[in-house]
Every structure is written in C-alpha cells, then in structure tokens.
C-alpha cells in the first residue's frame, strides 16, 4: 500500500501544481487497515467500501493505438482515446440481472395497482365479417361490469408505420380474422368479465375469406382493406415492389445456375411473457400506461392518436419485457382498449393475454412463397440474383411495407453481383397479421439464396466456402442497390468457421445421414429511416445524463431493454468513458415522462444508435470534469488521465484529484452536471424509390457451419454442432454477444426444424399454444461454439455493431445445406419436420429405382479446375480487404468492380445495359414470377377510380 514513494516518476512533480496528500501512510493507518477518520476531504456519509485505492488501469482493455495492449487487427477507431479500460470488451452480467434472478423484475402482468379491475376482449369468431350491429345492453346490465367499449369508441386508425395506418382499437366496420378484436369489457374480476363476453349481441354479415396469399393477388369483391387511389386493382395486394439493378445481360449463358421454389411457413416469436397491459388515468387526468413494449414511443404516438389526447398527457411506462424479438414492437389494440376502459371506468384496468390471444395478435414472420434464380459465369462470379417473394401479411399492414422491401434488398450483400432483380408482394389474408420478427424480412430469402449458392458450387464442383470467399464485397464499398458497407468481417467469419469446424476434412466426406453445411448472413445495424421519417432533423436516439453531488451517474434513455442487455450496454459505455465502476451508473429507461424520445428496440439499432448517443453525453461530462481538474491541478486535459474514480497527471499518477473532487469543482455555482447526447445516422444511399429500405449506418455479417444427423428412416433431423461466427464490430459485452448468438441459433433452428403456424383446412390457426407450436427444447439444441469477429466499425460505439438479429440468418441455410450433405436431397419446404424430410427421401429413393433409404448415395465433391482459380482469387481479395479495412487503401469500390468496371465512373456510363429500375417495363410483365404478378394490376388512380 505504501510504495508510492518508490515510484519512478517522470516529469516535474510539482509542475504547476497541487500535489495530493499521500493519504494512507503507515502512521495514519489503523491496525485493522482502515483509514483514520477525518483524512478525507469530502467525507461522504455512509460511504466507505472495501476498495480504498484506485484499481490499476487495465491495459489489456486499452487499444494499442493509445498505448495499451488490446490488439487492433482492424485498425484504430475514433473512440479509442476515450477508452479507459473500465468496461468495454469485458464479460458483464446484465445490470438488471439481480432483479431477474430474485423474481423482482416486474413484467406486464406484475403491475398491480390499487383498486384495479380486469379487462377482457371479445374476439371475432369469424374469419371475415361485417358487423351490422352490436348490442351491449345486456353486458352493461351485468352486475360487476364497470365499462364496455366497442369500435365506435375509438374510430381513429393507427399502425406502426406512418404510411400504413390500418388498425383500430376494436373492429369498426368489419373483422378481418378469427380473434380480431370486437369489443372489450372491464369488470370487478376475471370471472365476471368473462361472463360478460357471452352477453354481447352481435349481428354479423359473414364475408368470403381469403387464406391463400396466391389468391390474394386476384381481384376480390370485398378486399380486406381499401387503399383508395393507391389500391392495386381490387386485389388484396398491400404492397408491391419491383427493383432491378445491374447488367441483366450477364445472366445469359451461365456456367452454373440454381432455381429454387420455396415454401416457408409463418413463425411466431414465442416470447415467454404473454402480452399484458395496465392503464390508469391518474387523478390529474393523465394516462399512465404500463406495457411490456419494445418500442414504447410508437405506442405512445398511437395512443395519442386513438385516444385524442396529446402525447404529453400520456406516460408510457415500459415494464420489464419478457422477450420481444419483434413481437412487442407494434402499438397494440389491446393497449388502446385498456386505456379506453380505464377512462370509462375511472379505475386502473389490467388486461392479461392468454397464450392463445398472443397467437391471435401474432405479427410474426410472414408465411412466404419465395423463388430464387441465380447464375454464375465462367469465372464463378455471381452474375445475377432474381428473387420473387410473395408474403402473406395476414389481416393488417403492421411492418409489412418494410418487410416487402427487406425480402429483396437485404440479399444484395455480402456478395458482389452482376445484376439483381427483385419482385415482392405482400397481400392481406384473413389471418392474424404478420410483421417484424428477429431478422426482419431477411431470413427467408437469405436461406433461399445461401442454399442456391451451395447448389451452384456443387454444379461448378467447387467448395462452397471458397466460392463465397471469392465473391465478397470488400470493406468500404457499395452494394449494387447503393447500400454503404463500412466495416466488413465476412471473410474472417468464413475463415474462422471453416477452421473451427474442421470443414475441409468433413464436407462431402461424411457417411450417409451425417452432414455439414455453411450459411452466411447480412443484416442492418439500425434502420437509417426512423419512424418520424425525418432523419435529417431529428436524431434517432437521445440520451440525457445527470450527476449530482454524490457522484452517481443517472442516465435517461428511452431504449427498451427486452433482455438483450441494452441498458447494460448504455451503462457500460458511460462507465468506460467516465472510468467509473458500472455500479455508479444508473440507467432510467422505463418512463416516457423522464426519458428522451428513443425509437425503441427494433432493427437492431439500440447498441449502435443509443450507445453512440450515450457516449456523446458522457463525453460532455468528461470534458467538464477534466476542465475542473485542469483548474485544480494546472495540467491541461490533454495530459490528464481518467481512471477508476481518479483523474491524474499522465506522467505522474500521484499528481491528481479524485473524481469527486473534480466533480464538486465542476459543480461550483452550477449544481448537478447534466448533459445530452444524440445520434443521427449520416445521409446515405441512393435516390430511387425504396432506396431508404435497408439503409443502415453499418451492417453485420455472419457465417455459420452446422452439423446434422439425419435419421433416413424417420426423417428426423438433429442438429448436433454449430460453429457460429458473427461480426459485431466490437463486442462491448462478449457474454451478451455470445448469448445473442446462441439464442439466435435456437430461434433459427426452431424455424428450420419444427416451428410453424399451422392454418388448417378451414383457415383456423390450429396450434395456438406452446405444446403444438414446437419451439425446440434443450434436447434439440446443438452445441454452439460462438465466435466473435471484431471488424471495428468506424461509426459504431467503440466499433460495435448489432448482434441481436443478424446471427439468426445463417443457421437456416447452414442446416438445409447440411441436410443435403447428409442425404443428398434438397428440400425447400420449411420447416424440415420429419414428415417433410421423409417424403423427400422417399421420393428420391423412388427416383433411384426404389432403393432402400439406407442405400441413398451421399453427395461427394471432386474439385474442378475452377477451384484453384477461386482459391487464388480469394487470397488476392483477402489482401485487398485487409488494406481497405485498415484504410491503407481508400480508393472507391462499388459493386461491379469484380466484373471489370471502373468504380470512379458511373456504371451506367460504362455499360449499356446497366440499369436501376423500380417499376417493370411493359414487356417484362409477362415473365414476372408469382409475386411479380401483382404488377399486372393497375392502381385505382391509373384506372381513374377512387380519386
């Protein structure tokens, strides 16, 4: 403890300043090691603690570029000089984990207010029907019923996206699926409320429902919604997309091609906490709404619209969220219902969903028909992607407008393409709405694309990993659709899973029933377009920070922690910048009253945007503290070091002040320090229609290898091992990143092996419970080896990018490709339930002259001469990528360079056929795919209707 005097010190000890009292010398130390009272300058009442001396600087967690030991293979980062070695990069328990392990975390159903009553929702028994009348008199007469509401009480529409507001609190004119909300009641207890539901008298006019999305493309007598002059014919098409980029002539005469038609079932988020909401109009007439929301701000806006109450009179309180995955990101009609009932009854109203109701409100992944054609040229360059995606939107728009784009545009990387053609359509059907789910819109096409690549690799007799490595876009480049790629760890991810899985000695070499497969992923790290659609004026994220005399840091943010650890990430970056123990950082993020507007937890934006805003707010405080220390010590902030609760002179650590001394100095005449930081994504992307969809300030990349065992007699597929490499830029909290990777594997595995929303013969959802909706149990989980790739994104907080959604993408194609490696059968119906696999095996056996399942030939690979060419190109590109990543090469790179184009001149000028189109030309119409058929219809305005 007392060796300070032996320190070899540099510089002038007394220069300009104040030398801190040595403090605990042996004479002043009590025998029990505690310090003598009265020696502290600001004795804080009740404080003390067991760590009286500053922790040493953790040089292992300080980047090389600023003198530490942390290796930086991807180069230095603008935030390096704010690194203090405190938190970033260290495995950290979630800051709210103790609340969770003690049962004290309060989820939606745990909010109990005095005098509360119970709300229940009446749901439609019909798929599609007009409500001719609702008589509520018997309901109202039931003793114990305190409020009744129907659609007439809230005629305003809402919806998560400003362009597609098509939902009501309760059905106004018609119901659109079984389980759609019709009316609601609030009563003194659950039993009374349930009894009340039986007393509604409703006259229906039942309409002809549509369940098959392919039927939705046809003209209907009564489309599910009416979009006025923008309505496409009289069909149920909610959104159609056409995009074409590049030189379509490149796809002629391909060396290899793949054409796959996929059928993907809908999947649900399957979060463990059912929706629950409590609404309470407080005595001041303000609405306090407690809800487990991923995106409280959207709910806030919608509530304001529906209730016709200004937003400042509503306080949305986000409870703990028992899992979201996109399923708690829409503003929900039941939230409106609770508020309406509470306003009527004058008492707090609680509505809890049963698991079945969770399925009625769905908004999970779209059931999809996807067709992918792809070609490769003689040099195994990918000359074209042609994607057609028909997605089943269910009864409402939800996030569907965006999903329609994502199904195509998120397939434009990580590979360099000669051309890209996408047609997408989302149709309404009489089923619960589909919407956003982890990996929003990108998952299904990604699977189709990656499996197509596998097939092309097989045709060309090359290794599918080498095929990928030779076709990757480099860091700091542009995709064919104009997305700006910054950091890119795709190559490293592929190399590391190849090595980790011992790929080269397994692929196409294992016995029948055992297989290994590869899949890649690409995902946005924060949507560039915020809900207010005004990214040039309002920031995406704002964080407020406050430090009072006690030195504790209170951080106000609206970021919704849904278990992914966003609160922890914010606390970590603040802790890192201010060099304070994480226990001193208190994040307040539950109430809209106290938190600045944040767009919530969707599109994997929180770490990137919110942590960036938090860093900015912390830097402001940091500057104030350093200036105060400057005044006290006489050293310029440039030569001052922030370390664990102490600020000192760089060349003589003994010259310094404690954090609290500096803080109090900074607070003189001002009181508590406050600061605000915001993040706004830079302007990016093209100008074509839909160019904003898929734009993000950074993108994540991932590559997985999966190993499977297929029981050829039963068709049961067991995934046994996964090597999962994900480029998250920089792992702020490796424990959490690994948790996200493994958890994504689990969820993706569910979609590829067992989960589906089963709509039977009659259009009813047949499995609205967790027994029949088959989420994998622990026994189905493979051993996952998470591999974190750090490409250090130049704009990410300390280099970080997302890790919540992207890691889900590669597991699907990796498993499908592994199943092919195991049994030589390509299956394009997801999920690969045993009956589907068995059927495919049986068909294959039949085609092979009725051989026994156990005699199926396993696919084998003999390399063609293309293989060494690809390996060489991959090696060459590796060097190219390294230079670009480390900014040794800062030349422009756009998609097309691989095909010999000059990146510095517009491609349109170089190639005659190069185009960028967002609408089909008439001669194309005939050859469009399934979803493309939506373009055969004209909009009402073009037909002169509904002006």
């Amino acid at each position, binding site marked *: 403890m007392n060796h300070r005097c032996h320190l070899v010190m540099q510089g002038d000890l007394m220069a300009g300043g104040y030398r801190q009292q040595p403090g605990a010398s042996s004479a002043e130390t009590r025998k029990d090691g505690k310090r003598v009272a009265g020696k502290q300058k600001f004795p804080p009442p009740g404080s003390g603690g067991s760590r009286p001396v500053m922790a040493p600087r953790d040089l292992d967690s300080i980047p090389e570029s600023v003198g530490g030991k942390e290796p930086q293979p991807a180069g230095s980062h603008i935030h390096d000089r704010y690194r203090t070695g405190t938190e970033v990069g260290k495995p950290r328990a979630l800051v709210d984990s103790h609340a969770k392990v003690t049962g004290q975390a309060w989820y939606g159903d745990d909010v109990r207010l005095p005098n509360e009553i119970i709300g229940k929702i009446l749901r*439609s028994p*019909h798929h599609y029907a007009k409500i001719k009348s609702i008589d509520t008199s018997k309901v109202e007469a039931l003793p114990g019923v305190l409020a009744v509401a129907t659609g007439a009480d809230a005629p305003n529409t809402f919806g998560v996206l400003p362009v597609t507001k098509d939902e009501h609190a309760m059905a106004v004119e018609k119901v659109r699926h079984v389980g759609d909300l019709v009316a609601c009641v609030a009563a003194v207890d659950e039993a009374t409320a349930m009894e009340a539901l039986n007393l509604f008298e409703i006259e229906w006019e039942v309409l002809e429902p549509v369940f098959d999305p392919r039927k939705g493309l046809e003209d209907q007598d009564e489309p599910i919604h009416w979009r006025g002059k923008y309505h496409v014919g009289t069909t149920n098409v909610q959104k159609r997309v056409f995009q074409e980029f590049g030189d379509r002539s490149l796809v002629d005469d391909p060396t290899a091609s793949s054409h796959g038609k996929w059928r993907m079932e809908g999947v649900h988020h399957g979060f463990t906490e059912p929706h629950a909401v409590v609404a309470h109009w407080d005595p001041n007439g303000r609405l306090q709404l407690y809800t487990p929301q991923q995106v409280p701000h959207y709910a806030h806006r919608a509530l304001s619209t529906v209730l016709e109450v200004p937003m400042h009179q509503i306080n949305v309180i986000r409870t703990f969220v028992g899992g979201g995955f996109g399923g708690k990101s829409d503003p929900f009609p039941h939230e409106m219902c609770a508020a309406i009932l509470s306003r009527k009854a004058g008492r707090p109203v609680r509505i809890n969903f049963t698991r*079945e109701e969770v399925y009625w409100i769905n908004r999970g992944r779209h059931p999809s028909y996807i067709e992918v054609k792809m070609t490769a040229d003689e040099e195994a360059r990918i000359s074209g992607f042609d994607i057609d995606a028909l997605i089943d939107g269910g009864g409402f728009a939800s996030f569907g407008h965006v999903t329609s784009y994502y199904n195509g545009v998120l397939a434009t990387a990580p590979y360099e393409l000669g051309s890209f053609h996408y047609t997408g359509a989302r149709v309404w059907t009489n089923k619960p709405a589909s919407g956003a789910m982890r990996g929003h819109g990108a998952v299904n096409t990604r699977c189709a694309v990656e499996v197509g690549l596998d097939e092309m690799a097989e045709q060309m007799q090359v290794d599918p990993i080498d095929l990928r490595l030779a076709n990757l876009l480099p860091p700091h480049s542009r995709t064919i659709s104009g997305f700006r790629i910054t950091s890119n760890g795709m190559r490293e991810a592929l190399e590391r899973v190849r090595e980790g899985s011992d790929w080269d000695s397994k692929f196409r070499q294992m016995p029948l029933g055992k297989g290994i497969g590869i899949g890649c992923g690409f995902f946005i790290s924060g949507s560039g377009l915020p809900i207010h659609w005004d990214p040039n004026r309002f920031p995406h994220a704002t964080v407020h920070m406050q430090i009072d005399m006690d030195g504790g840091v209170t951080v106000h943010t609206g970021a919704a922690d849904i278990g992914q650890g966003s609160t922890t990430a914010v606390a970590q970056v603040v802790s890192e910048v201010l060099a304070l123990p994480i226990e001193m950082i208190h994040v307040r993020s539950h109430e809209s009253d106290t938190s600045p507007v944040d767009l919530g937890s969707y599109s994997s934006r929180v770490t990137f945007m919110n942590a960036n805003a938090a860093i900015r707010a912390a830097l402001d405080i940091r500057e104030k503290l350093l200036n105060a220390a400057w005044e006290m010590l006489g050293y310029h902030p440039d030569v001052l070091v922030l370390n664990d609760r102490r600020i000192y002179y760089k060349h003589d650590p003994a010259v310094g002040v404690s954090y609290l001394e500096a803080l109090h100095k900074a607070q003189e005449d001002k009181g508590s320090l406050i600061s605000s930081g915001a993040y706004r994504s830079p302007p990016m992307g093209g100008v074509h229609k839909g160019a904003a969809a898929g734009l993000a300030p950074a993108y994540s990349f991932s590559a997985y290898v999966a190993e499977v065992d297929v029981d050829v007699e*039963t068709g049961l597929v067991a995934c046994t091992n996964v090597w999962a490499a994900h480029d998250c830029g920089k792992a702020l909290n490796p424990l959490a990143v690994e948790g996200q990777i493994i958890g994504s594997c689990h969820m993706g595995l569910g979609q590829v092996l067992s989960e589906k929303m089963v709509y039977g013969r009659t259009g009813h959802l047949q499995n609205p419970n967790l*027994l029949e909706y*088959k989420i994998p149990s622990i*026994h189905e989980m493979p051993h996952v080896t998470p591999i974190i790739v750090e490409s250090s994104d130049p704009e990410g907080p300390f280099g970080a990018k997302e890790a919540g959604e992207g890691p889900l993408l590669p597991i699907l194609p990796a498993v499908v490709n592994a199943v092919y490696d195991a049994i030589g059968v390509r299956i394009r119906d997801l999920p690969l*339930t045993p*009956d589907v696999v068995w059927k495919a095996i049986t068909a294959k056996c039949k085609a092979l002259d009725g051989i026994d399942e156990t005699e199926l030939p396993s696919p084998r690979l003999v390399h063609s001469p293309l293989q060494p060419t690809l390996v060489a190109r991959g090696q060459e590109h590796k060097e190219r990528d390294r230079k670009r990543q480390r900014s040794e090469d800062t030349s422009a790179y756009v998609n097309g360079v691989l095909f010999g184009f000059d990146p510095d001149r517009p491609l349109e000028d170089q190639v005659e056929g190069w185009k960028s189109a967002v609408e089909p030309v008439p001669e194309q119409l005939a050859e469009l795919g399934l979803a493309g058929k939506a373009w055969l219809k004209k909009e009402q305005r073009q037909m002169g209707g509904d002006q």
Partner: protein
Amino acid sequence: MMLMPPFNLHHPTSVDEACELAATFLANGESFDWVAGGTDLLPNYKWHINVKTHVISLAKIAGLDTISMHEIGAMARLGAITSSAEVHPLIASAASKVASSLIRNNATLGGNICLDTRCFWFNQSEDWRRSIDWCHKEDCGTGSDCRVIPNQNTLCVATYQGDLAPSLMVLEGTLHIIGPNGPRSLPVEDFFQLDGITRNVLENGEFVLKVTFPEGVENRTGSYKKLRVRESWDFPEAGVAASWIEGDSASLRIASTALESIPRSHQEQIDALGIDFSAEQIPSLSEAIMKSIKPVNNTALPPRYRRSMVRVLAKRSLRAILGDE
C-alpha cells in the same frame, strides 16, 4: 389467466370415502370427474372442455402410489416411476419419455392410462371451438359434425396419445378398477373401448386403482419406441412397444399407441406370423402392423407419415428386444 369454470374440489382420504362420494353424486344426478395429477384434466378444464360440477381428488388417499415390479399404484407419479429401480425397465423407460420432467412430477400412472383422447379440433379454448361451431367430441348440445372426417356423426376419431398403455399391454398388465359397485379387474388391453368419446370401460363412479403384472414379468425384455418432434413435452405421434421372454416366441407381445382412438394390441399380426420369432421376421411383421392401423389427421404430423413410421418403430422395438439395436 385461463380461468376455470367453478367446481367443487373434494379430497377423500380413503378409497371407500371416494367411492361413497361418487355414489352420492351419482344418486343426486350430479356430474363429477376424478383428478390425480391434473396434467391432463386441468388443461381441458382451462379450455372449458367437459367441465363437471364436482372434482374428486385422489391425492390425499394414502397407499395408492406403490411402485414395484408386480404392482404400480394409480397415483404413482411418473417421475418416481422413471427413477425407480424396482419397476420393470420397460415401464421406467416409457415413463421417462412422457412429456417433460416437470410434467412427470405431477402426472400419475392412472392419469396417463385414462388420458383423454386428443384432436386439434378439440384441444382448444372455448372461443376457438365456438369459431368452428364446435365438434362431435364436445358438441355443446349442437349435434356438431366431426371436423376430422366430416359428414359422419357416429364416431369420434380423436387420438389416444398415452405413452404407457402399450408397455403395460406388452407386459400383460392387469388393471384393477374400483367404484361404488365394488372392485373389478381386467387385462389392460380390454380397458380401452372405441370411440374417442367413450375411450374406456370405466363406468360412472369407477376409477383405476392399480396395475399388476404376472409372475415372471421380470423375465421379459421390452422396448418402447416413440415418435415425436421434440424430445421434451410432445405427446407421441406414434408409439410401439414390444416385449418377450427371450427365446419364447409365444411370449411375444406388441402394442401401439397414438395412432387411433385407443391403443392397439397386435396379437393378430403376431399370430399370423405362425413361426418362431427371429430377426428375419421383423420386416414382414412390421409391415403387417403398419397395415393394421389407420391414423387420421388430428395430431401434429400427417397421418400418412405416422402410419409409415409404425413400420420403422415396430422394426426398431423388435430389434431392440432381440438385443440388436
């Protein structure tokens, strides 16, 4: 919450008291159900299916949870059976495949035997069933048609998905039943009765007391193969149990479950074989068993597939009892 309709729960502490209670309710014309572990009854009650005014719990009756080689009480919990060293290994293994470890801690042998038949048109909430205008199994007085096979209104084809029944059958278990009219016993395979509504021979007021096995059951080698998507939670989509006393072809027993409204013994197919059982007979025997069953479309996996899997499961269980797995 999934609130159950009101009912009265009764806790008799002896078998006699239970029978008396049942007799009283019968005499008063009041409906009632038995409940053991509750893992089958309570979900149905939460869905408002066939709710009765009274429920008699067997939980407080002492002595119904015997677990031994020759006798297992109805109230023996599946978790206890799974981990028991006393019980026949086939029963322990079959019990270990029921649902999840947590469910097995509640569930009982008696409950598993008396499991209600299942169907995705039926095991749904009241609102859900109202939206399909009910079904034949629970028609709520509407005379609704069967939703699995429309235009027939005589038979309920809901599937019996108990895991234990085939194992009890191939070990030649005897079921002991008691009720207001006294005890009776019968072979396990005679307990089940078509159709999906009738389910079994229990008359009003009777409940299962225990299963016993004949002397020599310990010499039987058995195997139960279960088809399911997940290794936890899932009911069998098909299940085949086989057992024999090694070397004694006459002792061969095979039974299947989860394919029709009742579990089935396949003695007929074994008898048709007519020669000594050996590995060579496995394919033809499995084929014959497959042909004898006709699953319908009311569980998670399609019936054609489940039917084909009977052959695989039969083959595998027969191989297992021959010691060739």
